[in-house]
Structure formats: structure tokens, C-alpha cells
């Protein structure tokens, strides 16, 4: 009757992982089972192809970008710890977190979630979403359904609306400001049922 415990003991540094990410032991076990299920060749880590085999992800217009978020630049493997750490961004906000400026920002705070989304746009990680980067995202999301002119006009208008300091690019603060009314916790969280 302790199949949870036996699985937990297989994961190295699991206590540290739980501290860092805030997942409960039951959730860690589920994510571990999922990790093992995705790792079809049992390499001990996931490659981009393993993610690519998820059908719903393959048909998602920004599927490739999401997959890219799991891998550090130049890397082709993500281990279980990194896997869980990325998914921890999507844990629902902890309502009772004390506002202590000395503790580091938890991994699932509103700011961290926004930063994750920001990095989906900002592929070269220079801290700004340039017009070219925005066009790229629009292109992957809309591909052959719209003309180049339509894409450009959409991109220009979006930058115009959000750009506050007039540098024709969207910085993280401008990004955050333009989304301040959106319920981030609801839209960027995954809730485990059990």
C-alpha cells in the first residue's frame, strides 16, 4: 500500500524538488509517471522528438515554441528536475504566501508566469519583443491563413498599443502593464484534480 513512497524514493533529490516547486508528493509521482511514459526509449531524459509525439501538442500552432521553452539553448535533453521546474510555473498561485521581500520569488508567482509567456515571444532573450519577433510569432500562429500585409499591420498596431517608451519594441514591463487586467492565475495555471 505504499506505491507512492516507492516511486518517490526512485527520484533523486526529491525533497529539494518539492521545496523548490511546491508540488505535493502525489503530484510529483504523477509527473514522474508522465515523464517515464513520454520517454519511450527510456533514456532518462526527454528529447524534442518525445514532446513531438504528443498529438495535441503537434497540432498546437505554437507547439514548437512551448517545446523550446523546456530546453536551454543548445541543449537537446531535459531531465526530470528541469521538466518539473518548468511545469511548476503553472501551479496555481499560493493564496497565503507571506509578502516577504527576502525570500526569492516563487516559481509560480504572477511575475514568473508572465515572464514565461514573455519568453515565448522573445526568442533571442534580449529582454525586448522586437517587431521581427512579433511577426514571427504571428506567422507561426496564423501561417497560411493571412497575408503578409495583414500580419504586418497587426504587428504594428500591437506594438503601438503596448510600447510606452517609444523604442518600437515591447519590454517586459510594458508587456506586464498591457496585461495587468488579465486574470493570470486562471489563464496560466494547471489544476491537478488528485
Amino acid at each position, binding site marked *: 500500500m505504499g*506505491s507512492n513512497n516507492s516511486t518517490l524514493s526512485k527520484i533523486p533529490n526529491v525533497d529539494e524538488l518539492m521545496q523548490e516547486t511546491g508540488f505535493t508528493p*502525489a503530484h510529483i509521482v504523477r509527473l514522474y509517471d508522465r515523464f517515464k511514459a513520454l520517454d519511450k526509449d527510456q533514456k532518462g531524459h526527454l528529447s524534442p522528438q518525445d514532446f513531438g509525439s504528443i498529438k*495535441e501538442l503537434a497540432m498546437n500552432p*505554437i507547439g514548437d515554441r512551448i517545446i523550446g521553452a523546456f530546453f536551454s539553448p543548445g541543449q537537446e535533453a531535459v531531465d526530470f528536475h528541469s521538466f518539473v521546474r518548468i511545469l511548476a510555473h*503553472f501551479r496555481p498561485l499560493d493564496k497565503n504566501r507571506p509578502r516577504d521581500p527576502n525570500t526569492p520569488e516563487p516559481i509560480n508567482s504572477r511575475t514568473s508566469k508572465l515572464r514565461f509567456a514573455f519568453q515565448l515571444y522573445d526568442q533571442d532573450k534580449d529582454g525586448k519583443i522586437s517587431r521581427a519577433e512579433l511577426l514571427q510569432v504571428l506567422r507561426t500562429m*496564423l501561417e497560411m491563413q493571412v497575408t503578409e500585409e495583414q500580419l504586418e499591420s497587426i504587428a504594428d498596431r500591437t506594438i503601438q498599443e503596448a510600447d510606452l517608451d517609444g523604442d518600437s519594441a515591447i519590454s517586459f514591463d510594458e508587456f506586464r502593464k498591457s496585461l495587468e487586467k488579465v486574470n493570470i492565475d486562471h489563464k496560466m495555471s494547471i489544476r491537478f484534480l488528485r
Partner: protein
Amino acid sequence: MEDSWDAILTFVKIWFSAIVGLIMLPAMFGASLGITEVYMKALVKILEWATLRLQRGRGEQQILKASLSNGIIQRDDGSMEKELGELRRSRPKPQEGGDFTLSDVFYFNRKGIESIVEDEVTQRFTSEELASWNLLTRTNNNFHYISLRLTILWGLGVVIRYCFLAPLRITLASIGLSWLVIGTSVVGLLPNSRAKNWLSELVHLMCYRICARGLSATIHYHNKENRPKNGGICVANHTSPIDIVILANDGCYAMVGQVHGGLMGVIQRSMVKSCPHIWFERSEMKDRHLVTQRLKDHVADKTKLPILIFPEGTCINNTSVMMFKKGSFEIGGTIYPVAIKYDPQFGDAFWNSAKYNMVSYLLRMMTSWAIVCNVWYLPPMSQEEGEDAVQFANRVKSAIAHQGGLVDLSWDGGLKRAKVKETYKEQQQKMYSSMVVGDDSSD
């Protein structure tokens, strides 16, 4: 020494006569002594008690409504329009230039992450999880130690299942299979006549009934008036090889399948002696015309038994019905749909062929509490005017899913091994583009 041998021999004799007398003979004639009913009632009571105990043990813990949910994460089933609409509510709609916001990406992002944690297709190829533990080690996922009594009950269950029920069931199954081989070979020696057909049906029925007892299967048949008739095609959703035993307990079918070697091959060869089944060589399977032709010929002959086909082509975990392959629906003839739903509380019937081979799967079956299932015979359907095979297949699939309380999915079961087509992604892009630029987007 002599005494102990005598004792063992007497024991074995008593054991066998008990099995034959109490279980096999009644089973062969379709009667029941009521032993199984008593067992099942006791089992239900015990499991109810265990469930209450577990719920008490968990105490104040927040349990979200998850009685029959198949997922481990909460999903918003809103459409793309609804979700994006909610995201965009925070700003006024622009005059021209299309309607795009930076927050649109949140919707796709969340869908993507959700699918990384759990996706619709892979989910269907693992066993369904129970809302409450049924005292089998194999279904224990989230349940920790609660009380001593529960542990004792579980231990008792292990002893009963492995030391008493399993040998009993294995004996029954072997008797059933040997009787099938011997009986059909004997019947095969007779010349073709009505008597031969009648005898062959009798032999088949008896063997499947013994095999069903060998699994402690309790089957409830509904709407027996819709049972498949000669010259028809019976289609059903596929969960495990046991489906055949379940269906054949109540009627005789002509089986369709590949020729195997070994024990299966022996059974196949003897079965075909007494009544015509359709076995294909591996090489013949590739030739679709040949396959369709043989099936057509069989269906055209009204004296032959109805064919049994599982159009999904692979075993699914009995929570959903996946795409039906159109081949079975191109043969013509009346289709008799059948829905099979297993009750997972007593034993999980799903064969995860990636995880278990046939022998370990059968052993798992024989060490479960029981196999309980419902079989619904649906009214016969035929292809309508102007309906092509794919639409017909989908119509039958929906009827089966609706009756069995299963989720109707249009994913291909074969996708568990293959890649997704580009067209799916394009569909998503199209839907999104109509929200961004409106419906007059250029192609």
C-alpha cells in the same frame, strides 16, 4: 508415505469433482447454482465498507468532484472563441487592423502545457483509475495506509485471490479450452448437416461458458431482441481479447483474425473444423480486396454465422471509443452494433499490450476479484443513401459510445504508434485566424 499420497489423491479427486459438479456442469447448460451471486454480493458489501473507511480516513482533505473523471488535471472545455474572448475582455476592441492581443498566446500556451501533462490519446491507453480503492495492489495509486483492518482485509484478499481463486480459474480455463479443441474436432468429423451446425453451436457455447466461469465473469445482456442474425456483421468496441468470450457466451459468431502459431493456432484450426470462421494468413492481410471479398462471400451466405469485428483495430481502455476503420463498413450487409462496458471496480479488463504480454495479462485477469460487464445489443443499422463508409462508421461509433456511456473520440487508435497529420494543425490555425482577421481572410 502411503498415507500422504492417498490423502493428496483424495484431495485432488474431491477438488476435481467439486469443480465439475458445482461449476462446470451447470455452466455448460447455462444454469447457475447461485454461488457466484453470493460471492458478488459479499464482495460489493466489503468494497463499500472499504470505501467508507477510506473516506473517513482522509478526513478533512479537499476532494474535488472526481468520481468518474478520467483526467488528472482540470480542463476548461471552453471553445477557442470563448477562451480568447475572456482573455481579450480587458481591452476595447480596435477599429481596424484585426483583433490580436498579446494575451492570445496564453490560451495556446495553456493548452500546450495541459497536453504535456496529460493528453487525450495517450490517456486512453492506460488503465482507468478508480475513484476509490478496490483492495487490489495494482490499482493503488494515491491511497496510503489508513487502518489495520483495511490492511488485514487487503492481505486476506491477496490470499484468497492468489491461492484459491486463481488455481480454480486456471483449472476451469484449461478444461474449457481443451473441451473446445476436442469437441470441435469431434463435431468436425460429422458430415455437413443441420445437426452438425446445432452441435457445433452447442459445443462452442459450452466452452465459452466454462471459460467465462474461469474468469468469474458476470455479464448482463440488454436488449437481447437485437442479437445479431446470420448474414450480418457484429461490431463492438474493443477492450481486450476477453471481449470474444463475453460476446460468445450469448450467441455464436464467426471469428475473423490472423492465423497464429502455437496454442492459438491449434484452437483456430480445430474451431474451423466444426463451423466456418475466417482466418487470414499474414500475407493475405495486406491485400485489402482479398480480405473484403472473403468477408463479402461469408456475409452473402445466409446459413453462416454473423461475423464479429472490432473496427477500432486495437485495445482501448474502455473509457472511450476511438475511430472506427471504414473497412468493415464497406462490406455491405446489416451492421449489428454492440456496446461493451466493463465495471472497473471488480477488475480491470483492459489489455495494455505494450506493458503486458498475453500470459501475464490472463494471469492478472484471473487474480482480480471478478469481471463484471454490461453488453447492450443495439438495433441493426445499414448504410443510408448518400452516406459514405466513413460517415456510416462514425454514426455507428456514436451510437455505441452513447449507449455505453463512453467518450466519442475521432482520434485513430493507431495514433498510439503513428504521427499526427499536418491538417490538424492547419485546422487550429484556421480557427484562430478567423478570430484575428475575421472571416474574409485570404487563402
